């Protein structure tokens, strides 16, 4: 019982809420106006155009000026109609935005369409918009009128009771009571009717005024591809920045430190043994730190990669690998900087992986460009059995390292990654990257 009462109360409150929400009503009334304008404008254009064509076909009467006028109208008709369709479409979308706060994006492929009516008339978007306008000037107008009628039910009922329609003769009790009940019911239903009309209108608009599903997906794919490319580029930029910072900062300080210690070591002369030992050890440590840092930074983004390209940059990592590496690069035309950076990372990371896990005696790196593809093959004569997760799991590193990291970097630029590594070896990693942007 209480629940029933509560339900009734909630219903009543939501009715009041609905009453307060006048936006669907406003939307429907605006739709009534715009629909009427649409009908007049499009109807007028179509009629004028048909009339001009009919006059031409039928043989123009009167002076040559009239014939020219018909030709101009016949030629301009489709263009004006197109502008009408697109202009009204924009107006309708604005109506949704202003009245309901519903954002309906314009259909794609509009650029230049204004100037190319033929292509625009070939586009489904134009015909869908036209379809919406046809709905708007018929169903839309009717629905707007219905909403208006619901709200103005009491006024209509009073007018009826006052005998406005029937030449001053007031209706009898029966019809009078019926009119009052009908007016009350219409008023009560008005918010729902308005909302239902708005919802149906919105559905129609989304289907006809906005981009189609395919267009939406195309736009989405484009924006995803763009943001992904931006992330890749940002990663590159970050690596370059870190490399430059280390080069200009820490590395210089370390060189200076090692140099000072070297000079100290050289001028020790007959210094006591403990002092000598400390200085010598410090000097060795500084030298080693320098070498380690150089190795680390070399893996980031060497300046020579931008300057002289992939071919030149790969010598450094191949020569620094802790096992003998043979390098063969055949890239006549350079790829885009971001692809070069990915390729460099792939080789660097693959060689690190070989050194860490493969237990190999030799490694071979081949980089060649075939058409628009850059093909990178890193093979070793190690124990094999490498899987995507081997590098990560065994080394305990975070994401982005090991073979999975390689696969991710390749995938981020629409590249492919394959690893062939039977137990017992040998292991071959093949990465193919698109050379373009």
């Amino acid at each position: 019982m209480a629940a029933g009462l509560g339900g009734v109360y909630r219903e009543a409150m939501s009715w009041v809420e609905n009453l307060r929400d006048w936006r669907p009503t406003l939307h429907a009334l605006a739709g009534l106006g715009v629909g009427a304008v649409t009908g007049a404008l499009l109807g007028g254009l179509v009629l004028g155009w048909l009339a001009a064509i009919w006059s031409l076909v039928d043989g123009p009467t009167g002076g040559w000026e009239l014939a020219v006028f018909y030709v101009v109208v016949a030629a301009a008709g489709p263009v004006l109609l197109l502008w009408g369709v697109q202009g009204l479409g924009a107006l309708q979308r604005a109506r949704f935005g202003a009245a309901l706060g519903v954002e309906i994006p314009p259909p794609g492929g509009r650029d230049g369409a204004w100037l190319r009516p033929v292509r625009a008339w070939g586009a489904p978007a134009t015909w869908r918009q036209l379809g919406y306008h046809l709905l708007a000037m018929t169903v839309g107008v009717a629905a707007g009128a219905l909403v208006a009628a619901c709200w103005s039910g009491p006024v209509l009922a009073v007018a009826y009771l006052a005998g406005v329609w029937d030449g001053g003769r007031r209706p009898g009790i029966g019809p009078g009571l019926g009119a009052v009940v009908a007016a009350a019911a219409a008023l009560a239903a008005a918010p729902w009717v308005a909302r239902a009309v708005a919802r149906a209108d919105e559905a129609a608009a989304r289907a006809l005024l906005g981009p189609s599903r395919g267009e939406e997906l195309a736009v989405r794919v484009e924006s995803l591809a763009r943001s992904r490319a931006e992330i890749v580029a940002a990663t590159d930029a970050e690596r370059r920045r870190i490399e430059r910072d280390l080069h200009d900062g820490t590395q210089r300080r370390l060189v200076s430190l090692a140099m000072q210690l070297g000079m100290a070591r050289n001028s020790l002369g007959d210094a006591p043994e403990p002092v000598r030992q400390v200085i010598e050890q410090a000097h060795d440590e500084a030298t080693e730190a320098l070498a380690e840092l150089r190795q680390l930074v070399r893996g980031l983004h060497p300046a020579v990669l931008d300057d002289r390209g992939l071919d030149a940059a790969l010598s450094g990592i191949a020569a620094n690998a802790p096992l003998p590496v043979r390098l063969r690069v055949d890239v006549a035309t350079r790829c885009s900087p971001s692809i070069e950076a990915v390729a460099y990372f792939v080789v660097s990371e693959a060689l690190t992986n070989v050194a860490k896990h493969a237990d190999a005696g030799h490694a071979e790196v081949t980089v060649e460009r075939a058409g628009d593809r850059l093909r990178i093959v890193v093979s070793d004569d190690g124990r094999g059995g490498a899987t995507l997760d081997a590098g990560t799991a065994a080394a305990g590193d975070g994401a982005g390292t090991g073979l999975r990291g390689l696969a991710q970097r390749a995938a981020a630029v629409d590249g492919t990654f394959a690893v062939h590594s039977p137990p017992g070896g040998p292991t071959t990693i093949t990465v193919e990257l698109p050379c373009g942007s």
Partner: protein
Amino acid sequence: MRVVIAEDSVLLQAGLTKLLTDGGFEVVAAVGDADQLLRAVGEHRPDVAVVDVRMPPTHTDEGIRAALVIGRQYPEVAVLVLSQYVEERYATDLLSERTSAVGYLLKDRVAQVADFLDALRRVAAGGTALDPEVVAQLLVRRRADPLDRLTPRELQVLQLMAEGRSNNGITEALRVSPSAVEKYVSNIFAKLDLAPTDTDHRRVLAVLTFLRS
């Protein structure tokens, strides 16, 4: 011997100046970019210029390009290029312009003061000093391989030769007898089909030509 230093880091410029001065060189100018370097070399005509690779304005290969200009305009001035990274491509550029009185070393090497001063003197005297790392990079590039015919020891000797070491230098580095080194060297030349030469300098040239071919 008179030296011009080009290094854009004030810290390292001061350090190098001290190191070279202590080592018996006279530092006649220490500058921070390639333009100033060329002016200083033109003005002072030093025996040797010590040049950093990455300098303003672009911080890429200014030093290499300046070294090439020095090689053309002042062939009597030796050039030792220093860098935090060595690149075989830059080495190839350097050696294409001049094959004597030229050196290319990692900056790390200045920490081994005595070795570094030796290398600088060698370059100033018309010799060659290539960083072992550059030689390793050149070796990575070899394909169809006569190098495979070399024993590991002979390969070591080849690398030391390519760095610009004399027989004496190789003897010291490997701690073997001079006669053993001579034998390795003649083996290498035979296996690589190189004409045997007696002077250190022409020997380096032969090896480098082989590695770069």
